[in-house]
């Protein structure tokens, strides 16, 4: 190790190599794994989209009996995901990348705007300058997951998403009084969440099919009432759409490992007591 370190320190005295520098947010482990899979980082790339939401889009509707989807807000979230992914892909293509891995997703839903920010590392085959003509893939999977999927015969296609923002019906005065102090299911919120979930998941799957994929892995979910409109339930999901790259999926046949480094059993005061 010291010899390696000596060689490393000696290299610092030499002038830096010529050419455009590669940038990445990958760790050492990820860089090595990527190298082993025949890829190298090309550039750190990002894509952002901010969509406006018309004033009053989150307003409660008096007399509403059923959950209602808020079309404008839902459209804004969907549009922001789509536009930011396209920008990320364009930056990747400009950097000569074949795709973007480890995409970090940030989503913010405000009262008047939605923001989606994506950031990841564009990668290219080792030594390749510009793999032209191929639409770059986008995935939020880590390099470890990407390599594992490739070995199983799958390839990522796109980062797909689905969203639905639903306004729950307000409870009537009668319901409010009847449910006060009771252990009861709040039917209005349950139905709203269920509606939002079904719509968003269906959109996610449809966009995967539209991208030419067969399924979606590692789906992340955001489902919560909005801070600025507690009666609105947002269900947003995103994940990596995959397709089969090989003729058929390859069996990985993982090895079973029993680690022998279990943490020591914690000190247990009861074991010190004498048996009665």
């Amino acid at each position, binding site marked *: *190790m*010291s010899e*390696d*370190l*000596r*060689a*490393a*320190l*000696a*290299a*610092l*005295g030499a002038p*830096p*190599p010529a*050419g*455009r*520098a*590669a*940038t*990445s*947010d*990958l*760790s*050492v*482990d990820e*860089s*090595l794994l990527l*190298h*082993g899979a025949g890829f190298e980082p090309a550039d*750190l790339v*990002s894509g*952002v*989209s*901010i*969509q*406006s939401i*018309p*004033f*009053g889009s989150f307003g409660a509707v008096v007399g509403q009996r059923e959950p209602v989807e808020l079309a*404008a807000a839902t459209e804004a979230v969907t*549009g*922001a995901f789509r536009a930011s992914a396209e*920008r990320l892909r364009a930056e990747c293509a400009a950097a000569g990348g074949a795709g973007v891995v480890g995409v970090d997703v940030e989503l913010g839903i405000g*009262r*008047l*705007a939605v923001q989606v*920010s994506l*950031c990841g590392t564009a990668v290219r085959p080792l030594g390749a300058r510009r793999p032209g003509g191929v639409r770059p893939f986008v995935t939020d999977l880590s390099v470890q997951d990407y*390599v*594992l999927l490739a*070995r199983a015969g799958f390839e990522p296609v796109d980062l797909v998403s689905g969203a639905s923002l639903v306004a729950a019906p307000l409870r009537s005065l009668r319901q409010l009084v009847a449910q006060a102090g009771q252990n009861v299911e709040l039917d209005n919120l349950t139905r709203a969440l269920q509606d939002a979930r079904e719509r968003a998941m269906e959109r996610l799957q449809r966009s995967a099919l539209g991208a030419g994929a067969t399924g979606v892995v590692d789906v992340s979910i955001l489902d919560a009432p909005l801070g600025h409109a507690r009666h609105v339930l947002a269900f947003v999901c995103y994940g990596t759409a995959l397709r089969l790259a090989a003729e058929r999926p390859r069996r*990985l*046949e*993982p*090895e*079973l*490992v*029993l*680690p022998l480094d*279990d943490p020591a059993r914690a000190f247990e005061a009861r074991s010190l007591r004498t048996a009665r």
Partner: protein
Amino acid sequence: MTEPSRTARTGAWSSALSTNDFAATRAMGLQPLAFVQGCSVVSWGFLGAGAPGARGYYEQFPCPHGFVSADHRLYGYNYEQTWLEEAWFGGLRAAYDRLLDEARRYEAHGVIGVSARVERLAAPPAVEFSLSGTAVALEGSAAPGAPFTTFLAGQKLRKLVEAGFAPVAIAVGFASVGVLASCVTEYQLRGVGTVTYGAAPVGEIDQLVRAHTQARALARERVRDQLGGDVLHAARLVVREVEAAGGPQVEAELRGNRVRRFKDVEPLPPPRPVVRLVDR
């Protein structure tokens, strides 16, 4: 005459390394010398900076409506806040130079596990930069003129060197873009239209998106300028939107490790998938 170092005065060494990082550092043949730091507080002013757009990125967003009224804004613009960036870089450079000066006094080969803290102070408007880390020396080797610096330490640093990369320096880029909203942007940010043009529909807020995109691109370019032909490794991009008197400001900060390849390594063999038979 320079003051003798803390280690020379007391005979003991200090470090900010965790126990694990310390063990890994020693295993590499590196000896911790001292906890070193450098700090600087800077304020900024736009006097002498010229009008927005005199230097750096500038983009206009004209009003599409024509003449509406005397108080209707005819155009908005995005502008790079070069005075803020210069203050930022000046402060960081001063803190970094102080960190290196202290490391040189210990005859260090490098500073590892660097931690960078950037904090805004409310009054007067200023930024505090504080860099700290552990100065280390390679046993049995003469000290170089310029110590290397890296955010990495311990096992991560060890793996980096084993992977054929030498740490060169920490690389930090910063960009700030101010937004003076055009009439369209203002309507979109308020979620309303005008009586003439109706409610603002769902749509992309172009001016703000351009500000975000440019801030990110500028921060990356700043870091790229520091790299030469070296590689930026384990970077982290942080973007924040700050509300200011004139409108929103988008600040992007990119930090990473500048590393240089000193030997070629063979690609790793395909990893073996395993299933751990342990309950979590």
